[in-house]
């Protein structure tokens, strides 16, 4: 596509979801109506056509005699590769220039078999030639009066009658053209055919298709070779090397596949790219004949259309063996079948191997089930004797399977991707990331008890950051290299996790947990990301209530301590409990804010309280990066203290190195020196605090640091890690921060750092800003006249009555019908909510269960109480379209914002915050407090 088209497509694709949803719904209905109408139309047309069948020929004869019948008319072009006047003229239409190739295993040749699998679509072209060939273009003209044709223009070049091929007449103008040496698609467009009428030169009437397209075949077709073919236990592996020097496949949107073909059908295929690719096909039948091949599906401009081309192929036979088949895992039991022995093969033993190749079960009987199998990647290895040319030999057949039982749960996943979602950091020719586990151990009694991902490709450990000069480490051998001098040492396991190009990084998806029987350790991750600042939020969970955070704090990680210790009452001696810590880190990268949640499960997963005492546990989280990126090390400490009747949990996160300055590019500084870890994150270029009016006056894109008290905050979005907030200064000036990446609370005094943007006509701090809470409001309210002077919150009162209205529930209970007006809600016997009159205002929509009000109808919402009652406050939950918002006395009331009323009624207007005059409010819930 051209760049300007790309730009237009981007703009059109940005049409808001509101418009798309509206049109899509109507479009579906309209399409259905159109189809029905068209069907009816054609039925009627058939009847009418029968009536007119007799009349039309007569009418045509009359009309043709009346109009200028003799004017020459262009009717189209044809192409041939020999002169149409030669004795044997041959059109190249649809002629195959390149025949498919392929080895024949059995049944149909692979060239035919893959056509069945991939299908064949007719090419878009009618004519195909080879480079450098001459073609003959015949221009067809209906010329009943045989006017003299003077010339025509083809692709902008004028051709006169003397240039036409011998044999041309006034109805068939033949021109010989050489297609040139360039392959691909070429077009010939005709224009301006001139003829002589008396003394005048006139234009021929143009009625035929003016353009003809020709595909020029390229001799330098894609090629492929196959090497290193190995076949064992129903698995075939080989390397396919595909080259396409002219880029023919990609130029026409073709694809390349590796396939295995059994003579009747393609039993396995996968898309591959150019270059050397190792492919594996599993589950092949024993003793069967197959063909493995590289296939390119594309239009080669050879006349066949878009068809599969066999680039290379090789037939092979799978071996005969005895092995486990039809493997079924249920819990910790595996059932399987043994492929049949025969006279030449005799079963001798079956073994079960764990992920590390260690034999964990052996039987000399031909059993078909094993209990108490370990978790992870397992292998069933069957040994057998067989006779080969009179000699007795032994063989083995292996079957790999997985057992999820006993595998440790997935406990973490990186939710962002390196750069453009593709791993771009090449290591060893493949693409590799790795996870690390830091160990702090004082004991030699250390072993690995379980690893959830059975494929451990490398075990390397380090002392500090230096690889230990030790021989290849096995699980058993690992213990031997640990120090046992009673002093803390730091080791690190590194487990390679190979990825293919295009895979997304999901680090921690198959995290293994390494246990030490004595002291314990942490698991951490290497983060493939540059970062310039670290901000953090800690959520502390107390098991077994994993799903419910008991406490959530959001602080800078530079020196983080939960403001209030967390207490868990009612724990009993001998009770079994556990704990975990979730840390959310926000990386302020060059590309914007990125978040990742790290689940750090410290200590044994469950603790049994055997006595009432004080416990202190340490966790060390290694948030380091690789390559050119910056490292941070953070030490987390969890305290467990038992006071009187409850346990206290306290988390401290302390960085052990210094973060680069805010505003830096994330590449400077090695994070190992230059400060104590508490000052680095505060600095940064341009971090001067300004007032809210100054921020509102700043142009879009200006970095601002603004102080204020939180006067409104939406619910914290834990999925994306943000909330919307409004801050207010002492003069009452307000500033809205959209998708603030820090969890703040109503009444908190904060300093927000972010970029100014404009939404419609409103100024705001754009997405991704962060806040430093300089004074948390907490629960220390200062109530005056029923409301907190700090956060504006409503003072609890014994005589206060709160009535909640959920529109979905209310609509169901009261029989509201979608797309119909229902203007009054009786929240209870005291409170009435009334939408003003209007064509659409007050309509209920069941699709999103909302009650809607329209700015274009000057809608209002009135909440009133019965005589003698006072409405103290209201809170409306709503979504909006076209910048719609509720207003009270000219001030906008945001979704979920508490509005102080202190009156028997209140009326809210519908307006917009972006200058629109068509704002829409969609109410979902209302909360009204009265007394």
């Amino acid at each position, binding site marked *: *596509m051209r760049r*300007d088209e*790309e730009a237009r497509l981007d703009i059109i694709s*940005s*049409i808001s979801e509101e*418009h798309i949803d509206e*049109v899509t719904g109507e*479009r579906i209905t309209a399409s259905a109506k159109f189809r029905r*109408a068209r069907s009816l139309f054609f039925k009627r047309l058939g009847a009418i056509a029968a009536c007119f069948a007799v009349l039309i020929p007569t009418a045509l004869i009359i009309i043709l005699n009346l109009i200028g019948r003799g004017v020459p008319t262009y009717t189209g072009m044809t192409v041939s590769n020999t002169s149409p006047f030669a004795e044997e003229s041959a059109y190249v239409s649809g002629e195959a220039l390149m025949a498919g190739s392929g080895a024949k295993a059995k049944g149909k040749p692979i060239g035919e078999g893959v056509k069945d699998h991939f299908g064949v679509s007719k090419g878009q072209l009618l004519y195909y030639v080879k480079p450098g060939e001459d073609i003959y273009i015949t221009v067809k003209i209906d010329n009943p009066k045989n006017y003299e044709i003077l010339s025509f223009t083809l692709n902008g070049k004028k051709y006169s009658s003397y240039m036409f091929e011998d044999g041309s007449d006034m109805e068939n103008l033949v021109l010989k053209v050489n297609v040139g040496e360039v392959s691909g698609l070429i077009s010939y467009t005709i224009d301006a055919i001139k003829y002589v009428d008396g003394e005048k030169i006139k234009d021929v009437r143009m009625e035929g298709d003016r353009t003809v397209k020709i595909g020029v075949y390229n001799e330098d077709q894609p090629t492929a070779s196959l090497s290193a073919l190995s076949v064992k236990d129903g698995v075939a592996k080989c390397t396919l090397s595909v080259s396409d020097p002219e880029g023919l496949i990609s130029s026409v949107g073709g694809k390349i596949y590796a396939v295995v073909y059994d003579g009747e059908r393609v039993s396995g295929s996968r898309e591959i790219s150019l270059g050397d690719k190792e492919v594996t096909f599993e589950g092949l039948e024993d003793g069967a004949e197959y063909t493995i091949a590289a296939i390119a599906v594309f239009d080669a401009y050879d006349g066949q259309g878009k068809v599969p081309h066999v680039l290379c192929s090789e037939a092979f036979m799978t071996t005969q063996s005895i092995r486990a088949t039809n493997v079924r895992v249920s819990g910790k039991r595996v059932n399987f079948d043994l492929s049949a022995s025969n006279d030449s093969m005799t079963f001798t033993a079956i073994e079960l191997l764990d992920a590390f190749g260690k034999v964990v079960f052996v039987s000399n009987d031909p059993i078909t089930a094993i209990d108490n199998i370990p978790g992870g990647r397992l292998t069933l290895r069957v040994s057998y004797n067989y006779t080969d040319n009179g000699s007795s030999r032994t063989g083995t057949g292996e079957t790999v399977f997985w057992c999820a039982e006993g595998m440790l749960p997935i406990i973490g996943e990186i939710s962002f991707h390196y750069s453009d979602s593709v791993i771009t950091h090449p290591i060893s020719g493949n693409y590799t990331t790795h996870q690390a586990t830091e160990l702090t151990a004082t004991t030699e009694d250390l072993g690995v008890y379980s690893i959830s991902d059975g494929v451990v490709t490398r075990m390397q450990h380090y002392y500090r950051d230096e690889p230990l000069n030790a021989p290849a480490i096995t699980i058993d051998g690992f213990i031997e290299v640990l120090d046992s001098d009673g002093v803390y040492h730091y080791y690190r396991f590194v487990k390679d996790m190979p990825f293919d190009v295009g895979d997304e990084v999901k680090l921690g998806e198959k995290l293994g947990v390494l246990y030490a029987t004595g002291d314990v350790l942490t698991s951490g991750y290497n983060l493939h990301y540059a970062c310039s600042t670290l901000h953090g939020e800690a959520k502390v969970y107390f098991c077994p209530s994993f799903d419910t955070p008991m406490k959530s704090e959001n602080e800078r990680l530079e020196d983080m301590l939960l403001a209030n210790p967390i207490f868990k009452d009612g724990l009993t001696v001998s009770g079994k409990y556990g704990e975990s810590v979730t840390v959310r880190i926000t990386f302020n990268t060059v590309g914007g804010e990125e978040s990742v949640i790290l689940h750090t499960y410290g200590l044994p997963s469950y603790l049994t309280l055997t006595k009432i005492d004080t416990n202190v546990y340490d966790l060390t989280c290694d948030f380091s990066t690789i390559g050119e990126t910056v490292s941070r090390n953070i030490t987390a400490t969890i305290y467990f203290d038992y006071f009187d009747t409850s346990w206290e949990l306290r988390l401290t996160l302390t960085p052990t190195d210094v973060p680069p300055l805010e505003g830096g590019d994330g590449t400077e500084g090695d994070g190992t020196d230059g400060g104590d870890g508490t000052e680095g994150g505060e600095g940064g270029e341009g971090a001067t605090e300004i007032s809210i009016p100054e921020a509102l006056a700043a142009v879009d894109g200006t970095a601002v640091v603004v102080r204020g008290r939180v006067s409104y905050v939406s619910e914290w979005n834990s999925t994306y890690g943000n909330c919307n907030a409004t801050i207010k200064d002492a003069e009452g000036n307000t500033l809205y921060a959209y998708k603030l990446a820090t969890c703040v609370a109503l009444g908190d005094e904060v300093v927000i750092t972010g970029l100014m943007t404009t939404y419609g006509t409103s100024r705001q701090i754009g997405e991704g800003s962060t806040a430093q809470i300089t004074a948390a409001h907490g629960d220390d309210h200062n109530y005056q006249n029923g409301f907190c002077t700090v956060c504006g919150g409503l003072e609890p009162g014994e005589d206060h009555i709160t009535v909640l209205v959920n529109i979905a529930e209310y609509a169901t209970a009261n029989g509201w019908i979608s797309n119909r007006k229902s203007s009054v809600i009786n929240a209870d016997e005291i409170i009435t909510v009334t939408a003003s009159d209007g064509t659409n205002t007050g309509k209920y929509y069941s699709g999103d269960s909302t009650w809607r009000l329209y700015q274009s109808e000057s809608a209002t919402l009135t909440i009133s109480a019965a005589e003698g009652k006072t409405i103290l406050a209201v809170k409306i939950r709503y979504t909006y379209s076209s910048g719609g918002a509720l207003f009270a006395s000219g001030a906008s009331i945001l979704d979920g914002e508490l509005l102080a009323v202190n009156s028997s009624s209140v009326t809210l207007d519908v307006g917009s915050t*972006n200058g629109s005059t068509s704002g829409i409010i969609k109410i979902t819930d209302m909360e009204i407090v009265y007394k």
Partner: protein
Amino acid sequence: MNSAKRNPSDGEIIELYFARNEEAIDATDGKYGRYLSVIGYNILHEKWSTDEALNDTYYATWNRIPPERPNIFQAFLSKIMRNISISKFRKEHAKSRVSSELVTSLEELSDCIVSEASTEEDLKIKEIAEILNKFLSDIDKRKRFIFVCRYYYADSVKSIAGMLGMNQRTVYRVLEELRRELRERLEKEGITV
């Protein structure tokens, strides 16, 4: 009397996705396959690629539900189908040009939306998109329907005329008016065309 097979409701289909029941795909295909194919074909103009895009749409839907629970299922599917088709169109036609309703509709817009995009124009594109959305909010519903069908879904003029029971010439005239009004709106907002 024969009982006609009832199409499952959108809610029932979504529940099948939540139950990880593969019949969800068949039910989606049965109810919306033809409709989605039209969206894909308008963009790709090639049955092979349209079928591929349709399969990719079902796969993406399977992966997104759950956790997502779309409010308007057909709109949810339409957007996925369009995005996948456009992505495929961009990839497959990076070098060669193939005429489709999408290309035709984009060419129509050349007289009112940006003549040439460049890297420094990224912000301009965003700005134009905002103005366009505002423009769509301000025009009446029928015009908005015509605009979105033609330029977002790349529906042919004939098809739009059929859906609205109008003649094609009227649709052409409305589209011309809309482009002129959009161009004037952009110029008023300081966007040079």
